């Protein structure tokens, strides 16, 4: 085997040997030298990588070179001598940042990104105490408020992270740089609004934006008003991935589970009932799992209308994606609604009646790791007349903000349990929040229902992991079920293209729009490019699943009761009416 070439160099006072192709930035980080960056983002283990070297914040001196070089895109060479903190370098970094600030609104006090802004951090780090370049006139670029995302392009610093994520990672192509010079802006084609573009609202652009140019639509004030209105009954559902990340906003280690503390905090805030989206995730498995079995059996019996593969449908950004780009394939995803919408439907149509709560007094709020969920609440098919099944959705970040406004310190909360019956869930519902989780949850039930035998091993390790596209073959008592898993819309596109061209060989496919699944959602605490955080969150969900007594959706006693009392059986007429949906062709031209 050919040996991989290495190069030796000196960075500041340290000698280091690295594989050929390593950048100065990477080598320096190995030595613990933290060269500042701004436009650069490289999330290891995912395909999110943006190195346009456009901001020049990471410049270093290289002996023998006249000009300073960007560390993020300059490769190490043999014998190189790099200096990362000379006076010349420090001055250059400071001036570069001052120049960026010259065209940046001084709105830190009221900016939603304040405290989590990479530009603000640099200004602090470089000791910028005045603005020497106040000359340039601020251009008035577009502002837009969509159902999910707020765009304020005056704050944009043109790092192109959002463009890279939208085009190369997600292959959505909604955002791109247009015009040039002072007139440059990042916008959809023909300078249209995001709401008119192919945007799926996955929110990954928001997740990587270093400043406040792209943020979420904020519903915290609306929630505050509802919670303090004595006439309203306000109930909440929390998505699985939230409990594995919320703690980070309160200084806890990534991967800390705060389920019980979160439930107590929500009660302290004044929610009348604290329920769990995981309950609805179990319900999703009942409906989606039954649909998988039905389509599989019909297909095996030669029914040509029973198309395979069947694709999961719980991710609203993914639903938007195939409605925009694969309108010829609207009949292959499962018709099951997402857990958020199943919860809303059950709460408003079944639970409210049972409790004698008038519909107009009931407010259903969801806490989601996701920004597309905000848009999903707004979809007409999830409304009864004008009344939405889920009134509105807050992101994990918004929940953290509002908890702080209620003077609650999450870390000091005692643990408590969700309310019954819509708060009871199995381990299957918990793992929905990570890539491969929905598939594993479905397999646990599909296996037992199809074979009639109990599972010897509940963990399906073969579907876990972080690879962009994974596949596995599951033995259902002789029948080999082929499953595929993709996270990130670019990977989803690859799988769909294979299906379109007839190259596909899977029976069931799980797709999540965000890299890592919901743990890496656009509404989660900002991870600043650290993929270890995503892995820690996923691990936390598997830990919660392991600690549950019940780990299969079909064993949830409250789900069983819901079918007995109200829905009949999975895929019944009632179930179709309340728990299933249909899709639309949204192609633009």
């Amino acid at each position, binding site marked *: 085997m050919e040996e991989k070439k290495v190069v030796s160099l000196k960075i500041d006072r340290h000698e280091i040997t690295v594989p050929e192709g390593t950048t100065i930035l990477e080598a320096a980080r190995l030595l613990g030298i933290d060269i500042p960056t701004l436009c650069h983002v490289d999330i290891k283990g995912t395909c999110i990588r943006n190195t346009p070297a456009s901001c020049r914040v990471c410049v270093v001196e290289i002996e023998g070179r006249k000009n300073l070089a960007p560390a993020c895109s300059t490769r190490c060479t043999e014998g190189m001598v790099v200096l990362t903190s000379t006076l010349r370098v420090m001055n250059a970094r400071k001036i570069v940042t001052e120049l960026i600030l010259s065209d940046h609104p001084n709105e830190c006090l009221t900016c939603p990104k304040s405290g989590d802004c990479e530009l603000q951090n640099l200004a602090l780090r470089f000791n910028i105490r005045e603005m020497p370049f106040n000359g340039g006139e601020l251009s008035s670029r577009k502002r837009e408020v969509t159902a999910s995302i707020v765009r304020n392009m005056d704050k944009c610093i043109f790092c192109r992270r959002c463009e890279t994520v939208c085009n190369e990672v997600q292959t959505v192509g909604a*955002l*791109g740089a247009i015009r040039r010079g002072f007139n440059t802006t990042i916008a*959809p*084609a*023909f300078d249209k609004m995001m709401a008119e573009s192919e945007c799926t609202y996955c929110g990954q652009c928001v997740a990587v934006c270093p400043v406040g140019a792209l943020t979420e639509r904020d519903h915290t004030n609306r929630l505050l008003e509802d919670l303090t209105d004595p006439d309203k009954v306000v109930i909440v559902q929390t998505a699985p991935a939230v409990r594995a990340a919320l703690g980070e906003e309160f200084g806890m280690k990534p991967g800390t589970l705060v389920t019980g503390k979160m439930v107590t905090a929500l009660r302290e805030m004044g929610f009348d009932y604290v329920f769990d989206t995981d309950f609805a995730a179990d319900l999703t498995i009942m409906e989606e799992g039954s649909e998988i079995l039905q389509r599989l059996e019909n297909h095996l019996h030669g029914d040509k209308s029973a198309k395979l593969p069947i694709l999961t449908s719980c991710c609203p950004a993914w639903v938007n994606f195939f409605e925009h780009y694969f309108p010829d394939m609207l009949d292959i995803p499962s018709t099951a609604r997402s857990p958020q919408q199943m919860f809303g439907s059950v709460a408003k149509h079944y639970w409210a009646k049972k409790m004698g709560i008038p519909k107009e007094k009931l407010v259903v709020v969801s806490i989601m790791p996701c920004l597309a969920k905000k848009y999903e609440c707004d979809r007409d098919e999830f409304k009864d007349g004008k009344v939405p099944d889920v009134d509105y959705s807050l992101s994990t970040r918004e929940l953290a903000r509002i908890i702080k406004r209620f003077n609650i310190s999450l870390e000091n909360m005692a643990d408590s349990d969700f309310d019954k019956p819509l708060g009871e869930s199995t381990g299957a519902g918990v793992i929905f929040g990570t890539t491969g989780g929905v598939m594993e949850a479905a397999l646990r039930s599909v296996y037992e229902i199809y074979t009639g035998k109990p599972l010897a091993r509940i963990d399906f390790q073969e579907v876990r992991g972080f690879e962009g596209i994974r596949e596995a073959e599951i033995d259902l008592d002789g029948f080999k079920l082929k499953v595929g898993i993709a996270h990130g819309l670019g990977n989803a596109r690859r799988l769909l293209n294979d299906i379109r061209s007839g190259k596909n060989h899977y029976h069931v496919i799980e797709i999540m729009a965000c890299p890592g699944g919901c743990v890496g959602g656009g509404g989660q605490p900002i991870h600043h490019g650290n993929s270890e955080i995503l892995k820690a969150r996923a691990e936390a969900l598997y830990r919660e699943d392991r600690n549950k007594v019940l780990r299969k959706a079909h064993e949830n006693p409250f789900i069983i009761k819901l079918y007995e009392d109200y829905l009949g059986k999975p895929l019944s007429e009632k179930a179709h009416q309340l728990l299933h949906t249909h899709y639309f062709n949204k192609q633009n*031209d």
Partner: protein
Amino acid sequence: MAEIKLACNIASQVEEICDRHHNKPGELINILHEAQSLQGYLPEAMQRIIARKLDIPVSKVYGVVTFYTFFTMTPKGKYPISVCMGTACYVRGGEKLLEELKRRLGIEVGQTTPDGKFSLDCLRCVGACGLAPVVMIGEKVYGRLQAADIKGILENLISAE
């Protein structure tokens, strides 16, 4: 701006141009160059066809179109007027010619008169510096001009119709 539908023959010509360049994304600028020569501009519908053929986001195509001043989304006039702003023409009064054209036509640089007859642009050097200042109308070069000549030139074009 209302979306302009392309005539079928134009649409198929755009597709042919893309095919001739093997639908390679790297050929985008050459393709846009040829596509613009069909009608003198690049309407939205044309950019959407190119994006589809090259399998790239339409935002990318639009980004390139808006980056280079050569590309335009405004239809050119029957008589496209370009005023040279190269060094020689500029120092010999190119700017005065431009001001006079703007005043007479009632449009700014990059615009077209409402009747579709004239459009106004600037360019840099046509290689006729000896004739400075120079204005091009269509393929014809008018040299050694003064602002007072503009009126006559425009009137001649209209009366020749």
